[in-house]
């Protein structure tokens, strides 16, 4: 038989070998802020379980190393990831001294790069499978369900990040919903204002350069500065405009963060609307006019549907960007997952940083996958129709 190495597999196997045998699997700390002590896989898990995990890693790495069928690689990466996810929870329980509530067990460098290695393998398989948009959303839902199941089952309860969570479960969900409201709300506002503005810029050439230049310059203002600069005008509005304070408009807090995110969101929405409308074939427009459509009918019947995928791409950019930027809102009292990130940085409690960062990354990632799938669906549908 002709045995050949898979180039990516060589990289994955090398990373996995280093992570499994050299790097620490878990960190043990006597309390949440002291420096930790490293634990290898065999130290962090009961002997039999540790050996089982090592066997799984070695087999999966070997499957990655050689040229093997895609299905086998898929199974190997999923089994390895599930085993790692389950057993890191076991390590948490195993390493925590009985009855000790101060000790913190967190996944260490080795665990993270093992996850990275097998995610790489999984990503490679999924890329090569060229999944349809629906299938990609399906995979995302499955992965989310699996993580949710693990969280509910309590098998990760002894890990430090969840201990941080249990200490502030209420505020976690409050900040989380604030984060989502900020990101989605500012996106919604940007679409409501940005779409007509983009259409206007498309129709009125004189406006175009000016509006886009102003929006471009807004983008160059660093986020923390823009957040800060809005404190004053909004504070003024809250005091002087009757009813504004009742609506929740205040100098600090959610309002300036919302306005800042809205301002950042305008450029991608407006610019993509302009680009999308400019890309509508002249022939389609002429035909529409020739058939006696009014400007309004032409806009909604021809131009807008044709420009839709491009506008959607702008919305994707905005959503992913906003989910990330909303973390900064915490600096001006605007809430969101950033609260945990900056608290964690302030207390040098990395588990707390993770509690804020991991959901943010997960949200942004999910938003990107879903919107990418939607964009692909609208464009392929179009192609199928014209073919």
């Amino acid at each position: 038989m002709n045995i050949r190495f898979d180039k990516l597999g060589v990289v994955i196997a090398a990373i996995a070998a280093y992570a499994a045998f050299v790097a620490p699997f878990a960190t043990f700390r006597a309390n949440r802020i002291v420096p930790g002590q490293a634990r290898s896989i065999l130290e962090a898990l009961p002997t039999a379980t540790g050996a089982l995990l090592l066997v799984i890693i070695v087999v999966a790495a070997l499957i990655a190393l050689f040229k093997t069928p895609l299905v086998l690689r898929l199974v190997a990466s999923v089994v390895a990831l599930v085993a790692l996810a389950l057993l890191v929870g076991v390590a948490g329980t195993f390493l925590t001294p009985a009855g000790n509530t101060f000790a913190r067990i967190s996944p260490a460098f080795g665990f993270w790069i093992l996850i990275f290695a097998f995610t790489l393998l999984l990503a490679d398989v999924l890329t090569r499978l060229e999944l349809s948009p629906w299938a990609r959303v399906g995979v995302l839902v499955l992965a989310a369900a699996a993580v949710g199941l693990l969280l509910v089952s309590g098998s990760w309860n002894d890990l430090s990040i969840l201990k941080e969570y249990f200490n502030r479960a209420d505020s976690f969900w409050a900040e989380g919903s604030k984060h989502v409201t900020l990101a989605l709300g500012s996106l919604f506002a940007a679409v409501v204002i940005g779409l007509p503005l983009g259409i206007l810029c498309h129709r009125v050439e004189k406006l175009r350069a000016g509006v886009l230049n102003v929006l471009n310059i807004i983008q160059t203002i660093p986020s923390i500065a823009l957040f800060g600069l809005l404190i004053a005008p909004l504070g003024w509005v809250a005091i002087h405009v009757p009813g504004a304070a009742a609506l929740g408009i205040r100098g600090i807090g959610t309002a300036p963060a919302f306005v800042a995110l809205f301002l950042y969101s305008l450029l991608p929405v407006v610019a993509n609307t302009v680009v999308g409308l400019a890309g509508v074939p002249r022939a389609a427009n002429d035909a529409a006019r020739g058939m006696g459509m009014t400007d309004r009918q032409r806009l909604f019947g021809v131009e807008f549907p044709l420009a839709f995928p491009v506008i959607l791409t702008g919305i994707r950019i905005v959503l992913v960007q906003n989910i990330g930027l909303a973390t900064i809102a915490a600096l001006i009292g605007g809430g969101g997952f950033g609260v945990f990130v900056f608290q964690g940085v302030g207390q040098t409690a990395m588990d707390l940083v993770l509690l804020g960062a991991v959901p943010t990354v997960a949200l942004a990632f999910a938003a990107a996958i879903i919107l990418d799938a939607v964009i692909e669906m609208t464009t392929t549908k179009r192609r199928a129709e014209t073919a």
Partner: protein
Amino acid sequence: MKAWLPALLRLALVVLLVAFLTNPGWFEPLLKPLTENNAPVIYNQGSLLTLTVLHLRTVLLATVAATIVAVALAILVTRPAGAEFLPLSRSLVNIGQTFPPVAVLALAVPAVGFGEKPTLIALFLYGLLPIFENTLTGLTTLPANVVEAARGAGMTGWQRLLKVELPLSAPIILGGIRLSVVIGLATATIGSTVAAKTLGEVIIAGLLSNNLAFILQGGLIVAALAVLIYDGLSAIERYTARRMGSEAE
């Protein structure tokens, strides 16, 4: 708009920026109304000029490193030997772009501690993506007959890369570097939340002491730098593109 107007505006911006950085005192009356209770008007815990230089140095270091690594990676995956990494690298870039800069910054702290290092790492990682993506676009959308002519003329793989493929992709690669620098300039300010010496320090000092003048001066210096650098790099980009007879966007 007259052709000289943008140039004049830019020149005025440069003069203003230099004047503010070297003699911030001149502008005190302008910013005075923004402060309350006789708070200091001009940032007083360090020189603005020094912070600006440090800010630019951080962005420059990170961008140079990101450019080298990203271009090298893009070259690797577009060679026959690395071709099988191409689809995966595209997916990874896509995934990578969903990581918020703050998260990258905060997650780098446990690995390297506070200060300039986590900022450099975050800027480097975040800068990689636009440059990699653009270099990839440049190298994979070369005009086929030009590459064919280069092979036909007897250029080796290296000669093709250095003499034809990279120079032809230069405008697009520069576009990636420009994006990466502008993102970097803004992200570097966040670096001050993990104690990096950048202009973010001024803004954060303003946020903490409720001093609007600080926030404004920090923010405007960064914005002015970004606008000027963006314009400068766009000009170089247009120059290289025009020489080849194609218009950059």
